[in-house]
């Protein structure tokens, strides 16, 4: 479990909109068709940072300390999920800033955008069973050294919502080997044998990172698990707290 469970959010209070306790500013991108930007921004605020709205047509990241590319169906998932968004102005700026070490988190559609824009390897394809699936999903945190996962105990198991139609992670065998060898598989699907992998992802992979651990993408939705009132748990909050910790250290 995350040690986020004692945070201010878990007492079931209605979220307090602008508590920037830490001074950290985290950008949340909205493309046309993005859906979970409101949720991602709420999670950022729950964790104590300021959520800065970034618009797809902007080339200015407004000096944010980190960026979340949220879930949804940007551009309707038309062509391929994330394909059209990956080619927007704001993503050009994110790719540039990521080279300089800006922490970037891609959730669900955001993960798809990060693979389509080349920030993370591999691709996300149609679920093996061909259906959209929404369920509460157990994940194991395989690596707690990335900037987005330090708040978790090594091997912690967390329960967060999962919802996608194109969440099957695929990559060349050599890429998978490399990810595994370098500890870049960050989240893995776990649970009842035979039913734990919701979409046919290779190696039960739910989330991966860049080599330096500053860019993380995952299919499940930590931003929907920040308060047991509206999500299955508050296990997801640790992700947002982790990046804020890393920002405060610098």
């Amino acid at each position, binding site marked *: 479990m995350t040690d986020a469970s004692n945070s201010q959010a878990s007492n079931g209070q209605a979220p307090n909109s602008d508590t920037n306790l830490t001074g950290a500013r985290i950008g949340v991108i909205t493309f046309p068709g993005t859906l979970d930007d409101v949720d991602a921004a709420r999670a950022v605020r729950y964790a104590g940072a300021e959520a800065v709205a970034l618009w797809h047509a902007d080339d200015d990241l407004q000096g944010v300390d980190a960026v979340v590319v949220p879930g949804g169906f940007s*551009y*309707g998932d*038309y*062509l391929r999920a994330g394909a*059209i968004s990956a*080619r*927007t102005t704001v993503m050009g700026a994110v790719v540039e800033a990521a080279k300089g070490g800006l922490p970037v988190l891609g959730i669900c559609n955001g993960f798809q955008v990060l693979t389509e824009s080349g920030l993370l390897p591999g691709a996300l394809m149609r679920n093996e069973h061909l259906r959209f699936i929404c369920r509460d999903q157990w994940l194991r945190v395989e690596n707690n050294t990335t900037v987005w996962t330090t708040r978790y105990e090594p091997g912690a198991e967390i329960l967060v919502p999962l919802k996608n139609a194109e969440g099957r992670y695929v990559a060349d065998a050599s890429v998978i080997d490399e990810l595994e060898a370098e500890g870049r598989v960050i989240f893995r699907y776990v649970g009842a044998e035979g039913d734990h992998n919701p979409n046919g992802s290779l190696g039960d992979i739910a989330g991966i990172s860049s080599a330096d651990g500053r860019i993380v993408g995952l299919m499940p939705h930590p931003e929907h698990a920040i308060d047991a009132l509206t999500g299955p748990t508050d296990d997801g909050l640790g992700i947002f707290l982790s990046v804020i910790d890393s920002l405060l250290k610098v």
Partner: protein
Amino acid sequence: MARVEVDVVIKTEILDPQGKAILGALGRAGHSGVTEVRQGKHFELVVDDDISDADLEGIAEHFLANPVIETWTVRRVPESGL
């Protein structure tokens, strides 16, 4: 073994949201030379040599396309194409 390709496209009078979105993205990326995009499906089948044209037509109509909104073309591909 023979190879067959079937292309399925949305009927022209019916909205193709995907094509519309791709065209928009191409425009924003400066590919102004493209003026229309329609997205359909492309199937590659491996079939027995003796399968009839009528069979293939039936397969396309009942399994690969939705005749209410789509049209299709069936094409046998020369062996060298494999």
